[in-house]
């Protein structure tokens, strides 16, 4: 369960304060597929980053499984991300110095798991990259890089998968492939999937759609 209570995020822009999120409160039950949409600058990515503990809100509280992450230290947040959260970025953010296989290994190694090589292999199989594990990110296409990112996001069997415009840098064919992979893994593993997207077609396939306008929730519909 993800709970956001009265979240406000203000940043300093030049000499002025800019409010990106304004008193946002959302509850997302376990296993739900939520799409967050909205215009550029509406605060979608910031909201996702706050849920992952990548940034702290200016005010308000965020709970994950009843633990308040807004009161957790930097190292505590790292542990929560390692154990419970998987993240997929628009620009993939693979580590360029590691091969695809090693990129998938990393989250498991951070957690100190054993027998991780076999699982990394399976995850690459699941995203159709069986023979591409030894390649470096620079040697992979955008679609392939994003599939590695998805395999990495699922490496530690997270309860929550956060995806920030995962298809935004891909063509429509590759975009659909990535989307299918994520929804398929969401269904198989019963994870909570929070997807930030511009794409209305993709958003319509979610169980719940939240629209942000100027940092506020302007619409919240569940099918």
């Amino acid at each position, binding site marked *: 369960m993800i709970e956001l209570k009265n979240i406000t995020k203000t940043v300093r822009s030049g000499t002025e304060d800019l409010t990106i999120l304004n008193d946002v409160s959302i509850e997302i039950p376990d296993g739900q597929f939520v799409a967050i949409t909205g215009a550029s600058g509406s605060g979608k990515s910031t909201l996702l980053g706050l849920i992952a503990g*990548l940034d702290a809100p200016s005010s308000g509280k965020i709970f994950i499984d009843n633990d308040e992450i807004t009161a957790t230290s930097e190292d505590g947040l790292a542990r929560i991300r390692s154990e419970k959260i998987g993240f997929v970025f628009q620009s993939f*953010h693979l580590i*360029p110095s*590691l091969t695809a296989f090693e990129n998938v290994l990393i989250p498991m*190694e951070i957690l100190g798991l054993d027998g991780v090589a076999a699982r990394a292999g399976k995850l690459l199989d699941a995203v159709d990259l069986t023979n591409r594990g030894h390649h470096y990110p620079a040697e992979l296409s955008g679609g392939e890089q994003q599939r590695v990112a998805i395999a990495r996001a699922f490496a530690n069997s997270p309860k929550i998968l956060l995806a920030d415009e995962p298809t935004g840098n891909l063509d429509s064919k590759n975009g659909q492939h990535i989307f299918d992979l994520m929804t398929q893994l969401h269904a198989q593993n019963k994870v909570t999937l929070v997807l930030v997207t511009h794409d209305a077609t993709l958003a319509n396939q979610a169980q719940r759609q939240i629209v942000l306008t100027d940092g506020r929730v302007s619409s919240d519909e569940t099918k």
Partner: protein
Amino acid sequence: MKFIFNLTRREIRSSWRRLLFFFLCIALGVGSIVALRSLIQNLTKVVGNDARALMTADLEVSSTNDFTPTDVAKIEDVIGKSAIVEARNETISTASMARPSDPANESLEFVELRGIEPPFPLVGNFATSDGQAFDYKLLENNGAVIARILLEELNVKVGDKLKIGEAEFQIRGTIDEEPGGTSGFRMGARVFVEKKSFDDAGITRNTSRIRRRILYRTSENPTPLVTQLREALKGTTIQVNSYREQQENLNEQFARTENYLSLTGLLILVLGGVGVWNVARAFIEQKRKTIAVLKCLGATGNRVIAVYLLQILTLGVIGSLFGVLLAQFGLWVAKWRFVDALPAKMSYAVTFATSWQGILLGVLISVLFSALPLLQIRSIKPKLLLRDENNVNINRLDWSKWIFGALCVAALLGIAVWQAGSLKVGAFFLGGLAGTGLVLYSAAVILTWVLKRTKSLGTFSIRQAVNSLYRPGNQTRIILLAVGLGAFVVIAVQAMQTNLVREFDFSRNQRLPSMIFVDVQKSQIDGVMEMIEKAIGEKAELVPTVRARIAAVNGEAVNFTQREIRQQQGQIGREFAITYRPKLDTNESIVDGEWWTAANPDEPQVSVEQVMAETLKVTAGDSMTFDISGRKVTARVANVRKIDVRNARTAFVFVFRPGTLDKAPQTFAATVLKHIPATDRQRLQRDILEKFPNVQIFDVADIIAAVDKLVSNFVIAISFVGSFVLLSGILILIGSVALTKSQRIYENAILKTLGAKRLTLATILFSEYGLLGLLAGVISTGFAVSMSYVVCRYLMAIEWQFDLPLTIGGVVITALLVTFVGVAASFDVLFRKPLATLRSQ
């Protein structure tokens, strides 16, 4: 831990090329320290390893005077009461001229003559060149055993005869090495003869440059005996030494030399540390996204720091190991270059202890200099993956960085103190380095600021080049600091060398004699003068000399039982050649008191040379007592004199007013100024020695050659080390160029897209590094010239002259070097296709 090790391994695999400069910076620094320390340690092993063997005894009582019966009685009294003395012998030594008896052989050489008696040596081994143990019988009936090199120098062979003084000796054998090896400065090669025949040679009769030794072998530690002897001989100038003290002194000297040399190595290592800091800083900046991803995937800041710290440690260790290899290579180069100046049996291998020390230092410096850049990892937030904003706080120094910075400085001070072996020297080193760095850095800031004001001038290429020096993440100041420091050391050494060599350039002294003839007896004056005039065509200048020792200052005998006074014994306990004359010489000036006048004609008065007056702490009005052949003469110090040695024909430390010494036993010194060919000089020396064997002749050309060689070896050695400093600077330059390369590639791609030709881009490149080089050259040369002025005028107190060719050369060569290295490291950028670059951004 598994995560940390695995990621470290993978990161090194992909990043090692980028960190190559890090690696090389450390390797060069460690290499310098290990090479310099090993060199001096190996030298210590050969030269100063065994003071006991060097002394050939456990205890030595020595004097440059005859032992008086009273002295002997005192010595025998102490020795007689001691139960630890096992054996005794006496030796006598001096420098003298040796010439083959064969009149057809005109060779002539200075030798170090040593008269010995059995048993010799009391301790240690003594073997002849053929490996046989030395047999005293070789010396009986005017035999001599000589250093093998003398056979070649005198063009003689075993069995031939040599003339030394009035006696003739037959060469019965040769030695390659005398007991305990060789130590100290020698006038010539060693010749061993019987002590008895030494006296027969007539050498002891007139000359006083003789050292007599009574040597003892003891069954136990001789230190208590040394104390008793010193107490008994208090008030005399007789020296008492034990091998233990000698060893301690030798060890102290070598340890001090080793520590000073290590500081030079540390300078290179610290410069390498600056390179490490620069590379680590840029590396972490490049790794920002990777670090953010790792944090996003759940790695804590400390674990990420651990990954990069382990990476630095690994490279530090590998770099240090490579440094040890470099050191070994350096020692081979030293062998090739300095083999003639170093002892024959010296080892040129790096020592184990030094290697360990070098590796430890390399790792410490790696960690210390990368600590602050690594701390920046804490400031890198995973949110930058969502919005690629610049992490504005990344370079802000928070309190933890201040604390860490202070710890690093403290650790660096600890290392400097450890290497220097002294807190004062270590702190001075670090302070001096910080001061030099600050001056260079400030100069760099000011010059670049001035340059910025002129950026609207010049062509498009020049304007772009100036702009490049200010691009975000530019390396301008760090390059100026690093290259500037390297060039500064090399140019400063050169500037000081020029002045030092000029100082030792005896040819500038119009009054410098070409030959000096000493110990000429009154009865020999006419004969010697006639021979000189006939050979040279110049009438020699004759100066009376009286041999004297300082017996007391202001009525108090010099107390050599005190350690600090004993250390100056060589300086003030020796026998002086003093003279008397009515007038001040043209190259002398009075700094205290007055030159003698007609008043008080009967009062003995003496003039003291300035440095000696300072050593003895005497001023005009004090009294000094001299021992002249056993007679005590007390004189009032009339004045203190300064001698301009650059314009000196003779330089007497003590000059008496005429009257007091006129009747004292004296000899004469004759000097001539005119230069004649070497063969003529040698013939004159031989002729005079043939007729007057007691006369000692100094060929000034030989002395000048020896001093020149010493200075030139010294300069080569410092320049050799200095070039390593410059090399470190160049490495940092290459590293800095590599760090900004991706930005340059991107800028060039944009400029090409906007229509810039390759020639334009090449001009920008040349202009940028040309400007940078020019700035580095001006800064380093300016500072080096200023430094040479301060050192020459105030530390060495020698004349300083501005050297225009060196100054211009320093600026031009530094500028060319920076331009060449910078352009060579970036040249491929000009040939990249812009599309691929723009797409990858």
